């Protein structure tokens, strides 16, 4: 029994790292642009496919192709902003959130359908030489590829935190996130900040996708599931907050994992969603967030 619990804890932390990584992007988009991109999971999916095809056709190891995938999705994110989300950010915050929810909904349909058309509905996984390797720490087995996911997540979170607190652009991001009109009056080019924040958010989703295609599997329909996980993490950390995301992600992963020991794997998702609803009911501003205006 103890072995089972310890293994669950380990698995929970590992998958929680992934939850945190994908939530980082969503938190950035929502925190800065006040836009809720429900198609975030689809961006993860696309990133996963990019890695998968880079590996399958050109034999490029996913860790090596990661910077390229990041860049490619960054550019795609810029395109998505310029042609779609830019129009959403024209309205005031309340309408903006509602419109972005609806529009990204439409985007989910579009991206998923395109993925089925071009990639087929089959599940794919990247199998490298080290895919099946694992560290053994006592009674616990830690797959290398999933540990890598956690490491990347933590690294990304630290980098983002550094960006936000130590750079001029990061200050501009936080200022825009707090109040975009005051930011504009301070001389910040809000349009450009929005564009870069959104592109970053897409790029982060993409590298999460690379890790998912390596450590788990991808198919055209996985988007919504991951988006929901990211949403739960973002709410846990505090809607609008860009800090404490990976911590919240690990928390979610742990709760899910331990609960499924008792309730069985089939109810794993339901537990997560139930936790979500409970948090929404009693502490909608999450662990780290401030109460919403």
């Amino acid at each position, binding site marked *: 029994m103890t072995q089972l619990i310890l293994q669950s804890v380990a698995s929970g932390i590992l998958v929680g790292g992934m939850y945190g990584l994908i939530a980082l992007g969503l938190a950035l988009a929502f925190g800065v642009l006040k836009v809720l991109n429900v198609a975030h999971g689809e961006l993860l999916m696309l990133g996963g496919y990019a890695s998968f095809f880079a590996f399958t056709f050109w034999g490029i190891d996913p860790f090596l192709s990661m910077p390229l995938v990041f860049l490619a999705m960054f550019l795609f994110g810029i395109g998505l902003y310029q042609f779609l989300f830019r129009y959403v950010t024209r309205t005031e915050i309340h309408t903006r959130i509602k419109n972005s929810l609806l529009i990204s909904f439409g985007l*989910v349909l579009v991206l998923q359908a395109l993925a089925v058309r071009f990639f087929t509905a089959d599940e794919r996984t990247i199998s490298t030489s080290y895919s099946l390797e694992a560290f053994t720490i006592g009674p616990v087995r830690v797959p290398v590829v999933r540990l890598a996911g956690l490491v990347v997540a933590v690294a990304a979170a630290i980098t983002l935190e550094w960006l936000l607190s130590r750079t001029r652009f990061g200050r501009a991001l936080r200022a825009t996130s707090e109040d975009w009109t005051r930011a504009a009056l301070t001389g910040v080019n809000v349009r450009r900040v929005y564009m870069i924040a959104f592109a970053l958010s897409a790029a982060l989703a993409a590298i999460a996708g690379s890790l998912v295609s390596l450590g788990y599997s991808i198919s055209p329909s996985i988007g919504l599931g991951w988006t929901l996980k990211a949403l739960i993490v973002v709410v846990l950390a505090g809607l609008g907050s860009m800090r404490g995301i990976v911590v919240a992600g690990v928390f979610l992963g742990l709760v899910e994992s331990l609960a499924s020991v008792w309730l069985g794997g089939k109810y794993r998702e339901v537990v997560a969603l139930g936790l979500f609803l409970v948090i929404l009911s009693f502490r909608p501003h999450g662990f780290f967030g401030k109460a919403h205006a």
Partner: protein
Amino acid sequence: MASSVKHMRRGTSSIAVLGVLGMLAAIGLVSENQHLLTLTIQTMVLGALASSWNILGGFAGQISLGHAAFFGLGALVTRELWLGGTGLALAMIAAVAITAVAAVVVGVPILRFRDIYFSIGTLALGVAVFITAGNLWPGITSQPAEALRNYDFTAPYFVALGVLLTTVAVSLWLKHSKVGLGMMMVRDDEEAAKATGVNSFAHKMIAFVISASLAGLAGSAFAFFSVSYYPNFAFSVLWTFEALLVVFIGGIGTIVGPLFGAVFFMVGRDLLPTGIGEFQVVLFGLLFIVVVLLMPGGLTEAAGRLVARTRRPETETTEKTPTATKGKELT
């Protein structure tokens, strides 16, 4: 002038509603084509589901992303009871009743959430219910073999039509009632509505329960019509997606919008060449996006503008002062 335009608009929209309903009814009476009948039944079920969502989303302004939960529940109860021997009518009544009760139980906590929290809360709920349904009822549900040998479209057709008519009737009544007015006030500005004495929670609750019950009714029609499916399919978020798509494209908040949208969507999907495959989803997805951004009133708004424009030339010609036509002007 303004009031006569409004009268014209109300008149035209009633004609539109009757037109669509009439057309759908006529097909059943006239046609024997299996494909057309299937398509029409599916359109009516989707139209009913969309209209039910419209009550909560369009009238009361609460964007629910978990609507399929009630559709699925209605389908589940109907299917289990009906295939188990209970008469269809009783099964459907039970389905609506159970769905209504579920809506009350769920509505009390979830309607406390505002705006976006409500949307993502209902999304989470919908997905949780979908997964649970899949866990509890994993096996496929099929109608017995004898029923399939000579599948008679008449009964499911008229059940679906009846369900659609009921939903439209309830929508119409609601739109012109005091309760409905309260809902629309909450939709437009909840704080202002509360300040004028409207019990916003009660109105949201009423919208929620009516909307859910009608979704359950639509689910019943689906269960009665479908030959075989996995029970959790009726709980799938795809139904919610389609309902939203159809309502927005057709025109949210109107009576005829969900109907227009359902017909447009189903016919469009059917007419698009099969080679196009998934691109039809892409097209509808893009159309949805365009509607949200540029024409929130959907097809209904577009049609209204078109109608308004065709009436204008009459006023223009009467205002022109008659001039003697000279030969040279005719070039």
